[in-house]
């Protein structure tokens, strides 16, 4: 009880000072749920703070929303995974420059009974075609996230016009990765997920990975500084130091070191042309 009271008092004292704290050393990074919920940030940010003394406040939302937060000038750095949308972000002048950071991959998750008989395959387009023709339950994020963008790309690769053929079997949840996985778990449905969130997800039920390893499941992450010319409040020096650190050998090593159950989640590839 005493601890709780101390916590309340500390928080109350801190609150009026929060605006003043805005002058101290921190940046706001708008990022995706996959980096936050996979535990990656929890692993690499303490190292960054230790190296630079800069605190990082992560607002974890979908890629589309993260880019919007950047467009409004409410974040200093955007760290997302939808290359086409990122290039558009730069092209319209909302961001300064895009740096590739790392990649991981998407995996197709499905129920053990596997009604579409796709388990064990490596061809994601064939799997998507099988799901559509079996009309097996499929959960879509439908939230303009990076994963949603990737899913739509994969339907196109499979030669399926999902907007035309979708029926009751295709559930558009409009929610984040975690809630969508919870829905899929409840419905025993197929779902496209990033590997990191999947590995850190507990409520699996009968779900498991059914298709992985297709090069089309490649999932590239990029980081960008919000354009300080457009939003003078952007902490361009601190933000750039974060970007420089993430793509530096030390940052890249920290990313490579993050593992769940011995499995590496993200593969650094700064400097590549991805």
């Amino acid at each position, binding site marked *: 009880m005493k601890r*709780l009271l101390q916590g309340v*008092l500390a928080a109350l004292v801190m609150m009026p000072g929060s605006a003043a704290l*805005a002058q101290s050393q921190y940046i706001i990074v708008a990022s995706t749920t996959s980096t936050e919920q996979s535990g990656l940030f929890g692993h690499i940010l303490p190292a960054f703070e230790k190296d630079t003394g800069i605190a990082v406040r992560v607002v974890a939302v979908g890629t589309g929303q993260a880019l919007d937060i950047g467009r*409004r000038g409410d974040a200093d750095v955007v760290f997302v995974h939808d290359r086409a949308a990122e290039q558009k972000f730069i092209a319209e002048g909302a961001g300064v420059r895009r740096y590739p950071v790392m990649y991981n991959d998407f995996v197709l998750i499905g129920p053990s009974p596997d009604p579409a008989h796709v388990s064990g395959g490596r061809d994601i387009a064939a799997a998507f075609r099988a799901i559509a023709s079996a009309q097996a339950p499929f959960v879509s994020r439908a939230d303009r996230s990076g994963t949603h963008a990737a899913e739509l790309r994969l339907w196109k690769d499979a030669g399926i016009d999902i907007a035309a053929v979708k029926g009751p079997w295709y559930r558009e949840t409009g929610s984040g990765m*975690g809630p969508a996985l919870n829905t899929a778990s409840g419905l025993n449905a197929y779902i496209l997920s990033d590997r990191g969130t999947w590995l850190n*997800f507990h409520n699996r039920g009968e779900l498991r990975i059914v298709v992985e390893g297709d090069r089309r499941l490649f999932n590239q992450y990029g980081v960008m500084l919000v354009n300080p010319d457009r*939003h003078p409040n952007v902490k361009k020096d601190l933000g750039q130091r974060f970007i420089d650190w993430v793509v530096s050998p030390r940052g890249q090593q920290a990313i490579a070191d993050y593992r769940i159950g011995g499995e590496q989640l993200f593969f650094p590839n700064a400097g590549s042309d991805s």
Partner: protein
Amino acid sequence: METFSQSFATAFAMLVTHDPRLFRIVGLSVAVSLASTAASALIGLPLGAAVAVARFRGRSVLVVAMNAAMGLPPVVAGLVVYLVLSRSGPLGPLGLLFTPPAMVIAQTLLIAPIIAALTRQVIEDAWSEYRDQLESLGSSLAQSTMTLLWDTRYALATVLLSGFGRASAEVGSIIIVGGNIDGVTRVMTTAIALETSKGDLALALGLGVVLLTLVTAVNVGVHALREWARVRHG
């Protein structure tokens, strides 16, 4: 059923081990809810009392608006505050977005109408009882309002409590304007939302148990206060 027993065990373990992260989250939850309840009281008590006592043009419109505002969806309140506090919004230069004060503002937008509307009800009932007596004593409208607010203080304590309860249980607005930033704007409800989306249902429910315990404790306290007041003041 396994999830339920597991979550109670989790809640108990977190409480007895004095998990510092938990205490920080609970502390911020209580602080934000207290601050927004206090701000809402500063707005809602005088507003509700004034509307109860005074007669002016547009009063009935204001009463309807206050009652309607009680049903404001938290997400809408959050969105409005987000757009106002955003760097691209009118109050952007203050830099309040994604800070606890932003959460207090959003919750105040939600709770002040509740406190105002319930206060109006309490004061209006009291006013019909007290009016002749106070006017007989030469009490001005402003003096009467103060007297009514003080004389209904125990009923109003319950009003404030319902405001606090709504604030501490609310997630829709504060997750938008606070951003659920670990260690900065993460409170009980947004932590529950996060653990739910990570699929860690037992931990989410465990946090829910802690939140419920907290709200129950506050309720017991106010109930005891009212009982004491009933015995002492009738």
